[in-house]
């Protein structure tokens, strides 16, 4: 029987069935770059970063410049818009909320995820695969499906509406399936001898988990951690329903600001540009790791 469990990216194996495991693969290919290739690459770059650059440069222009010549460069360069954002206490409030919520989400998702993945990888028991299936199926539940009851549950039943935890906990829960699915192969790959040696030295199962499994899974933890962090940082729907006023996160702040000050295009662009930076820096720094995590090629 074919099961959902074997569905990539869920499989324990790299989805690229032909990938040689364990060896770090370098960029090998034949065919260099003719002028046409470079031209195409240039076009791709322009289209990709164009809108981002437009936002960043637009922040350095005045609204009057933007209207006079939508495609021009800043002339003269205006720094007031950025200064306005950086001195705006609302902005820092949003940034703080985003940071705290993303940190709670990450810690909870990674901790609960690695704990759950550990027995699913290292123990033999009857419910192991069914239990793993629960997490795999979790991948298929979009937040949108549960959003209205989630909103009621958090605001009314748990009284966590408009709080950091009220957003972070469900976000962690929705990040868990990915976390478990990515971490399990990492944990499965740990050599058994290390564990055995630790047990002979008198370590408890929890001690082995903490002192052997966790440190050795660190690269995997970083991958799922970044995914959970950026996922939470970028989230919109759940915070939109749960957070008001000064509890709002950056994406909500950006959306609010852009409707509220729609006439101040330059200000909106500056606000948006600064809000892009943290996730951009974090994700780009971790890019290789994220891709290998997504690929399921978990050993490098």
């Amino acid at each position, binding site marked *: 029987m*074919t099961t*959902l469990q074997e*569905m990539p*990216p869920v*499989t324990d194996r790299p989805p*690229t069935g032909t*990938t040689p495991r364990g060896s770090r693969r370098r*960029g*090998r*290919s*034949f065919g260099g*770059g003719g002028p046409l290739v*470079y031209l195409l690459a240039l076009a791709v*770059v322009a289209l990709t970063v164009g*809108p*981002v650059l*437009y936002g960043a440069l637009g922040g350095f222009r005045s609204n009057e410049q933007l209207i006079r010549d*939508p*495609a021009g460069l800043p002339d003269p360069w205006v720094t007031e818009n950025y200064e306005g954002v950086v001195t705006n206490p609302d902005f820092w409030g949003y940034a703080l909320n985003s940071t705290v919520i993303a940190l709670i989400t990450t810690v909870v998702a990674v901790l*609960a995820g690695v704990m*759950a993945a550990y*027995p699913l990888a*290292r*123990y*033999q*028991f009857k419910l192991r695969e069914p239990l793993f299936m*629960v*997490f795999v199926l979790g991948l*298929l539940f*979009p937040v*949108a*499906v*549960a*959003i*209205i*009851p*989630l*909103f*009621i549950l958090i605001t009314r039943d748990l009284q966590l509406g408009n709080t950091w935890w009220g957003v972070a*906990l*469900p976000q962690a*829960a929705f990040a868990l*399936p990915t976390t478990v699915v990515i971490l399990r192969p990492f944990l499965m790959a740990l050599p*058994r001898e290390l*564990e055995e040696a630790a*047990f002979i030295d008198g370590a408890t199962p929890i001690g082995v988990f903490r002192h052997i499994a966790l440190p050795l899974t660190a690269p995997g933890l970083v991958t799922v951690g970044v995914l959970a962090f950026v996922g939470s940082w970028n989230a919109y*729907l759940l915070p939109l329903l749960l957070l008001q006023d000064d509890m709002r996160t*950056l994406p*909500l702040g*950006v959306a609010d600001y*852009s409707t509220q000050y729609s006439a101040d*295009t330059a200000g*909106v*662009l500056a606000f*948006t540009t600064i809000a892009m930076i943290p996730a*951009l820096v974090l994700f*780009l720094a971790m*890019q290789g790791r994220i891709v290998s995590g*997504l*690929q399921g090629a978990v050993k490098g």
Partner: protein
Amino acid sequence: MTSTGAAVAATPAAAPADPDDPGSSRWRQRLEIALFVTPALALMATFVVWPVFSAVRMSFYRWKGFGPMDDFVGLRNYERVLTDDVFKDAVLHNLTIVGLSVAVQLPLGLLLAVLLNRRIRGRGLLRTIVFVPYVLAEVIAGVVWFQLLQPRSGLVEEILTTVSITPPDQGFLGTPGLALWTVFVVLTWKYLGLAVLLFLAGLQGVPDELYEAAQLDGAGWWQVQVRVALPLLGPTIRTWAFLSMIGSLQLFDMVWILTGGGPANATTTMATYLVSQGTQRGNYGIAGAASVVLFVVAFAMALLYQVLVLRRDTAEQR
């Protein structure tokens, strides 16, 4: 119990299913498993499973969000959702995005991946740049694009005017016939980088020997790409298509920011429909029914995809 005894119990992976294992250590093992798995299961149960079940329950009641939920209406909410033209359009919009993604983003992503796999200068930088839009929050990317697409003052119209294309009066997002396509273009901008990166990673897995052998047999560059590299990318492509499909079905953020579902519901999706029914109109029962339909559509497509497409991968691996 000695610690070595515990070791045997705790690492049955090392000594699988010991038939002589005394019951007490097995219970101990069960306790450990429970201890490790409980936090995750509790979170999932509270914030994923329970809300999904209550969406199902909610879908059978007429409920405005206050007072007890006691006005059982059977399948009437489903009837209303499924006969609502706005919802029907929403499903159609979601399916259009799913179809367009495969039809447009797949070939485009493959082309770029194959090109970026060539030995060109600055390849690493190029790959990073292609990935930038994927990293941005949909909302933030949406706000920038909203500015770019502003009727009359936006950069997109400015550029089109200089190449003598007349933009529509209401702008690209304000014209019902164009809005969904415009949203799709922005989504492609946002998500093409992920496809390219996944495909590139897949291409890296193609063994050099295969390229060399094909070259020795006299195959040209394009021939090698189409005959050798692409077939080996099969599993990666199918994985990407699955991710893209699930993502397209729950599309919300970008639409909400760019058009809010308008103009005249031209860009409503199942998610925007249920959110506005639930939070703006207080029709919780309708929102519940729409949630269930969204889930059924997503699940059915995932299952169908599994049976029709992904099965090949599982078979190959056996």
